[in-house]
């Protein structure tokens, strides 16, 4: 018998509300810093991890609001592992 998964348990505790085109789902926001140009500059990354089927049509430059902050998708989103989760880089709008 197939194992039934409820993927929303992964975004319920630490997730933040993200809205794209009026549709809102919980996502995990990561904000790691990165060292650029051989450590001469600190870059601030924004990475949204989401259930793939929640936002199927994300492409570069699509507007997304996470916890009230406006961003745009920065580059192509990518699926993780078995494809049930995806990541998208964001930049502040």
């Amino acid at each position, binding site marked *: 018998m197939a194992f039934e998964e409820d993927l929303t348990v992964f975004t319920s505790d630490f997730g933040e509300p993200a809205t794209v085109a009026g549709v809102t789902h919980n996502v995990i926001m990561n904000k790691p810093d*990165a*060292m*650029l*140009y051989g*450590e*001469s*500059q*600190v*870059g*601030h*990354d*924004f990475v949204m991890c989401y259930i793939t089927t929640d936002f199927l049509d994300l492409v570069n430059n699509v507007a997304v609001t996470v916890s009230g902050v406006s961003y745009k998708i*920065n*580059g192509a989103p990518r699926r993780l592992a078995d494809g049930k989760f995806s990541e998208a*880089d*964001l*930049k*502040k709008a």
Partner: protein
Amino acid sequence: MTKAELILQLLSDICETACPDANVFRSRSASFDDKELPAVNIMPSTDDALNYGHGFNRHSFAIQYDLHVGPQDIPDAAADPFIEKIHQAWMNSDAVKLLIDDLQYRGRVWEFADADGGSTKVRVTYEITNLQPANQL
């Protein structure tokens, strides 16, 4: 104070005046945060001296600056006006012409990175030529 230090101080002062909306640094080794951008970091590179005879050396003093710009949609386009302003200010400065024999642009290298949008670091190099007494640096 060596001639090299006088030159770097002068070029740095001119850069600050020419680019009031940029933060200008001298030989900064600590990393920049994007809140500090745009930033210009002026550094010496090399100083080569050739014997010119009669107690003089001909110095070829290479300097460079790193211009950090970002986040921007087209970061090299955002960097361009700063590079132009610095170049014009340095090349047209009477104080520079009094201090050195020749200042030549020697090229630039762009590096790009993606963090919260586009960012670039442009390294711009100049060469200064000076005839100096051998007992002076």
